[in-house]
């Protein structure tokens, strides 16, 4: 019985620790300074890092903004949607 519990706990830990990625996609409307500002506000990134991701979104069509636990990733995506940025989350491979 004790062994069974141990296995279950291990599986749960593995599942919950799978990292999730927050990705922002380019669109033709949002102004570049605005996107930078949103990245600073949502992720508390310094301006240089926020500008790097903004440029990546603009030039490559998308940028990986953050990796971590699912719950927090969902909150970030919700915040990005509130700022009218196209965003998604996906499991890290």
């Amino acid at each position: 019985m004790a062994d069974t519990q141990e296995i279950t706990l291990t599986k749960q830990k593995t599942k919950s620790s799978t990292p999730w990625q927050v990705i922002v996609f380019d669109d033709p409307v949002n102004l570049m300074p605005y996107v930078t500002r949103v990245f600073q506000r949502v992720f508390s990134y310094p301006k240089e890092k926020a500008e790097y991701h903004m440029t990546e979104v603009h030039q490559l069509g998308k940028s990986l903004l953050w990796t971590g636990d699912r719950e927090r990733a969902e909150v970030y995506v919700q915040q990005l949607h509130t700022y009218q940025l196209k965003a998604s989350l996906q499991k890290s491979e």
Partner: protein
Amino acid sequence: MKAAPTIDGRLQIIIEEDQDWLALDLIIHDSVTGNREDLCEHLSSELKERQDWEDYIRPDLETHFSSQIKQLKKFLDESRDQKTFYIDRQGAEYWYGALNQSRLSLETKYQTSHIESLDEINELELEMRSAFLRSQFYSNLQGLLLEYIMA
């Protein structure tokens, strides 16, 4: 219409003729050219697991976007008998959001972002040209808000 930042961190809008109000009222009109459902679809179109988002996030987003438009409409209605009004830092948030909704709606319907040169503008149908110019006007207002009020 003239728009300029003030020393105390607000954006001053000076109404010069009645048509200026029409230009401002079109922000409200254009925000529903597409609709809020389309905006939510656009923002979430890359999400793979949508059910929780549909159940818990979409209703809040729709309420939030609707609130931005209502606040702007109330502001415009209350300012209509004035020749000059001011957008402060708090107001700039819903002004910016409403302008963005209008530009996203116009983009969805007209794809104005593909227009790159002045020569192209002159060759456009009147409806398309009007949509492009409105989008540019909204974008310029957003630029002023970002640079001087929201910074």
